[in-house]
């Protein structure tokens, strides 16, 4: 594997607000954006600025990665962790973490967040979902009514 070739022992991640996180290489394997950067390097330490991710969010992502990279944790323990992890988050947190996951190109974490967000908007009203994603509707009431009529098979 590419990651094995690299001699890096410690990776320093610098969040948008300047907070600094030192992590081991196995923690960032899931972060493809970071991984592809360090694969190119031949040195012991590296600092990577992540201007699109805030410290609080990065701390949570690292916590998640640590838990899931651990070989000692059982599958059940990881599931329990996931359950609690989502439970303590507000919807804004989830969306910011989804953004971060997309930026860091983290496949399974992105999937995890997308699923958690889907669970929140499932069977909710249009207004709720607009508010959730903070979407400003650019339809006139007439256009919206037209669209509803056109797709009325989906609203029964």
């Amino acid at each position, binding site marked *: 594997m590419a990651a094995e070739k690299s001699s890096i022992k410690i990776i320093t991640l610098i969040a*948008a*607000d300047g907070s600094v996180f030192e992590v081991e290489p196995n923690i960032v394997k899931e972060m493809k954006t970071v991984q592809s950067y360090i694969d190119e390097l031949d040195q012991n330490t590296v600092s990577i600025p992540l*201007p*699109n991710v*805030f*410290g*609080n*969010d990065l701390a949570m992502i690292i916590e998640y990665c640590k838990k899931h990279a651990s070989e000692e944790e059982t599958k059940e323990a990881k599931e329990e962790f996931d359950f609690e992890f989502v439970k303590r988050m507000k919807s*804004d947190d989830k*969306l910011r973490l*989804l*953004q971060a996951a*997309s930026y860091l190109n983290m496949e399974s974490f*992105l*999937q995890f967040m*997308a*699923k958690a*967000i*889907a*669970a929140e*908007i*499932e*069977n909710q009203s*249009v207004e709720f*979902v*607009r508010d959730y*994603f*903070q*979407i*400003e*509707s*650019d*339809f006139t009431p007439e256009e*919206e009514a037209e*669209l*509803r009529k056109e*797709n009325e*098979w*989906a*609203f*029964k």
Partner: protein
Amino acid sequence: TISNSVDEMMIPPMTKRTRHCNEENEDKFSDLPDCVLIHILSFLNTKNAVGTCILSTRWKHLWKRIPTLTLHCSDFSTLRSFDKFVSSILSLRDDSIVLHSLDFDRNGSVESRLLKKVANYVFSHNVKLRRLGIDVKGDICHILPCISSCQTLTSLKLSVSPKGRYNYEKTLFPKSLNLPMLTYLHLGNFAFCAGGDGPIEPFSAFNRLNGLVIDNCTVKDTQILCISSETLVSLTMRNHSFDFYRIELSAPSLCTFAFIGTPYQMLCGRHLNAIKQVNIDAEMLANYTEPPMILLSWLIDLANIKSLTVSASTLQVLSLIPDFLKDKLSFLRSLKSLKVKLKPLAYGLSMTLKTDKLEKALKAGSELSSPIPDGIVDFLLQNSPSTDVDIADCSRFDDSFDQLPPISSSLFPQFLQPSSQEHVMDDLHQRIQQLKKVVLLTKQYLHLAKEEITRERDELLALKGHMMRLSKTLDALEQQMHMAMNLWQ
């Protein structure tokens, strides 16, 4: 809004998190790429996903590009509107987008035209299809070719009952199914039919099978169902029928066995020792003799169980074996963990227990109504006293048993469950006898209860309700028998 992205990063997180505090927040999630939004939509049921088309212009056509279709009639007010929805989706979805998953679940007899339409859609989008679920009442011949064509399928959930008002027959499980990538198979309402030569081994062709669920299935023209698989790790069964047959396991990697319902099938085979984890949620409607004995035989034959999870009702079923706590048994020697899940008992079982206990109580004066029968935990642990015991209240949320949807409840569904026995009239007759037995039992309980608990008026009221439900069920069943008689003669 592109230029302010750098400024935004400078805003401390606490300020950023507060909603509506400045205008920049309005579009703060609008830079999520389409593919991420589609990812979210792919976890929604398709009705919800299509509903997002009126959020804004950006969302108008997003739903057409979702690689998963979750089509469940339970999301719709009528079957007619559901059928219209399915037709529309299949016509309007972007044809160039690959399909990863399709789950079609519809109650009631489905029109062949719609079933064929779904099958054709699967057939023409089968290149990367990984998950397929079809739960319908219809003719399997319409969908069989499309399933066989999905060579990339890793997960298949198939439940097909024949059309008709009552499900007296099951669908014969096709012998020709060859899905080389399949790792998970869930079958509902099938009958496994004996071939010309030897016992049936319906699963030996799936070379990568990892998880198998057999829900409400049976055998035809044979007494043995062979489950042969080198790779199978987990087996889940649900049974509410009175079909007695043997399950011969030839699965050296099988590690987990889960069961829900009334135990009527014996387990045998060379590799029973491989099973380390067992989850059982057993129940009975009346005091039958066989299921408790079969349940006990499982615990004896599965000699290497390390982790056993049982519902309280499972222990109650075991406790109906007369005098069994006195026996010294050589079982559960490797047990490390015992979990008991407390859930409210099913109605029939709780009545059976009340009658049973009241009889004993009148004789011996012992205590009534503990969720776990006295002494049973010690009995299970007689050969492994250092086992971890965990008793958890699971009326709220349950992981291992909840993977099967509940059987819809009206009257006593177990009695009205589809039967697979060859002789429908015999079977119905048998059920009526059994139900009459329950009625007798309840009458007996009423009699005993009058003596014992005349002060407990609530109990009496509940009993009367029970009697009413029983007689309604009996009426329904007799009517069903009457109709069946007209149908068959």
